[in-house]
């Protein structure tokens, strides 16, 4: 394969597009907010299966109305007859709540019901989970920054972090726009995206560093362009294999993994894009050249 696509000519357009989506994402996250699941908001979740597939969401809602539970969310979940009920967290002790809800449903619905999953997260635990989720993501960004800073120059470090922020914010932004639920597994997905996107960026940066030393007469735009083209088939092949695995989880992995795999699919797409169109242009912005690398080389090579 002998591709020669002029990527650097499209940097400007791509950056404007990225900036626009980035800002839109932040606006959505700030003003529309995120749809936190019970992991982070507290509350009760019940997944049930009814043998009578004629049972519908409004029937379940009506039967729970008498309990004055506050905000109740009922939706179909995968197969017909499977439902997911979410009840807002209530102050005080919830120990009696779950058996009461179960009893009400068994008495009011004209069907055999099995409770497949019951989760209850208290307000204190949920705020701790949210906090540790935020700490984990921040810490992983800091760790990546540090790692790249050791392995490359500071300009590369900043470039990779800008790309990571871009990926994380836009992924979460899309979750906000589509009102998709943010739960513990989404945090796991975001962290994996951070790892994946970094992986992609490192491969291209590695090549840029090599080519800066090899072709000292080329400027950073040309070097970046050359490096992206040289690594392009690897970028595509790895994205494809990862995507094949993810699509397989998304389609066949069941309802519980759907949100997670969707976030990952978004992340892989955005991460692949950003390592080409965000991480590389930052080096151009800092006017990185073979001279930038010289100081470091001296330190390493005795």
């Amino acid at each position, binding site marked *: 394969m002998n591709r020669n696509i002029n990527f650097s000519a499209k940097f400007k357009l791509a950056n404007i597009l990225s900036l626009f989506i980035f800002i839109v994402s932040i606006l959505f996250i700030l003003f529309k907010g995120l749809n936190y699941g019970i992991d982070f908001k507290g509350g009760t979740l019940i997944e049930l*299966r009814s043998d009578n597939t004629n049972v519908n969401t409004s029937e379940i809602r009506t039967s729970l109305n008498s309990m004055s539970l506050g905000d109740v969310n009922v939706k179909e979940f995968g197969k017909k007859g499977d439902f997911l009920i979410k009840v807002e967290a209530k102050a005080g*002790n919830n*120990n009696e709540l*779950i*058996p009461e809800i179960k009893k009400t449903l068994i008495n009011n619905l004209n069907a055999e019901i*099995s*409770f*497949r*999953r*019951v*989760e*209850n997260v*208290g307000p*204190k*635990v949920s705020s701790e*989970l949210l906090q*540790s*989720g935020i700490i*984990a993501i921040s*810490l*992983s960004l800091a*760790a*990546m920054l540090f*790692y790249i800073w050791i*392995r490359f120059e500071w300009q590369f470090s900043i470039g990779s972090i800008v790309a990571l922020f871009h990926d994380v914010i836009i992924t979460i932004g899309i979750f906000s726009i589509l009102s998709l639920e943010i739960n*513990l*597994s989404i*945090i*796991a997905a975001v*962290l*994996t995206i951070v*790892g*994946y996107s*970094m*992986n*992609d960026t*490192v*491969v291209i940066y*590695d090549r840029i560093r090599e080519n800066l030393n090899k072709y000292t007469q080329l400027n950073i735009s040309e070097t970046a362009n050359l490096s992206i083209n*040289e*690594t392009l*088939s*690897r970028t595509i*092949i*790895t994205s494809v*294999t*990862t*995507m*094949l*695995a*993810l*699509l*397989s*989880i998304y*389609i*066949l*992995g*069941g309802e519980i*993994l759907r949100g997670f795999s969707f976030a*990952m699919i978004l992340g892989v797409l955005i991460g692949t894009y950003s390592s080409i169109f965000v991480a590389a242009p930052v080096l151009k912005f800092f006017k990185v050249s073979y001279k930038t690398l010289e100081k470091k080389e001296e330190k390493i090579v005795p």
Partner: protein
Amino acid sequence: MLNFSKINILLIYLIFLFISFFSILNFQNEKDPLINKKVNLGLDLQGGSYLLLEIDSDPLIQEKIQSKVIPLKKLLKKNNLNYSNFTINKKDLIFSLNDVEKFKLLLFSKKDNFLNPYIDKYNSFELDLEILENNNVRVLFSKYGLLTINNSALKQSIEIVRRRIDDVGTKEPTILQRGDKRILVELPGLKNPERIKNLLGQTAQLNFRLVADNEEFGVDQLISENGEELNVSKRIVMSGENLIDAQPNFNNQSNQPTVSFTLDRLGAQKFGRTTTDNVGKRLAIVLDGKIVSAPSINEPITSGSGMISGNFSFQEATDLALLLRSGALPTPLDVVEERTVGPDLGEDSIKSGLTSLIIGFILVILFMIYKYKIFGLVANLALIANLIMLVGVLTILEATLTLPGIAGIILTVGMAVDANVLIFERIKEELKTEKSIVHAFDIGYSKAKITVLDANITTLIAAVILFAFGSGPVKGFAITLGIGIITTLYSAYFLARHLTSMIVLKKKEGEINL
């Protein structure tokens, strides 16, 4: 990079075989295992209940500070200190004194200080003193005093939780301390945690107290089991601590479920004395501040055993007996997090997890063969070896496999080929300029090495952080992702490289097709 010494080859395959061996252990006969190691299934896959309990130490602190009142007053009297305005609060005692300095010396004396023991472990006293204005002082627990109370309450709670759960007889429960206030309980296979939650939700502090209208210790107004309002003395005749056994039973006459109990020597003495002195009066049996029953004392009971009857079903009698046997919790426990997965959902999750793993795996394998032909086959062999080793390492660690953990394995499948892709693409580039094919492969491997390492370490960092901060199922994802990266590096850099070298060195120039 393509030359392997015989020792090298031997080592590479020995390590591979050694680790792979452990993955086979998962398929051995359950009843007669050769080596008892296997990958455990998480609660989300085998079904079961996860409970996070939190101790509430406030009532305990209140109780403890109250217990300081009598020794404190004794100490003040003995040393001729005059106090006034003595108030007992939830966490402290406030009073005014004529000689604050003298009191301070007494409170913090290290010799025979029964009121305020010195905790050697923390180099601190149990109590602290705050001097307020107008000769007022405030006595409260020090930071380390509180810590000691909390820690011992937590330890004791864990012990009692364990006893209660063991008594119910669920299989392989896990009971662990989490932080300084919480207890994690995992109950595999448990479908309905209500009974356990009910059992853990009661402190089960049992007291025997006389029903009396006026008492020097004061009375509590409690409602009896049949709705009567009774005045019950605050003085405790005997408490649950003196119980050595309790069993559910049936009353011979009424055929009602009852709980019979046996007392230790001290308890039997106390019980005998009280029942002898108070024939004709009523004795209230109080559990967690509620009267279970308040029978009349017909005759002295000196045998050291007795029976509690109340309006309970046999199940309730069984549970009450269990609670009394296991002892009282020092302080109430709250369920702050609960996750229960039914066994059918667990089975469905395993099924869909495995299906997507197999399909994802096949897709990746086909794609690699399409892309790289014979070297695709090499990459695929490495991938299969990678998976076997991944399961092997999980077995060695006896790690817990969760649904997100399966997702981590699938993701490893997708990302693992990256190492080989990086190497093959690099070799392709080298082939353009390099005449010697062997040389091109050699350079390709060494040049790609740094990139492969750099690229995988970043994902490894993410996995480690996820492991440190994640909980439950998410931790399972971090484990498989992290181990997957390490087995990937091994299989790409040792196994696949050796296979490649065999092909390259055997084939003649010009026959290599990447």
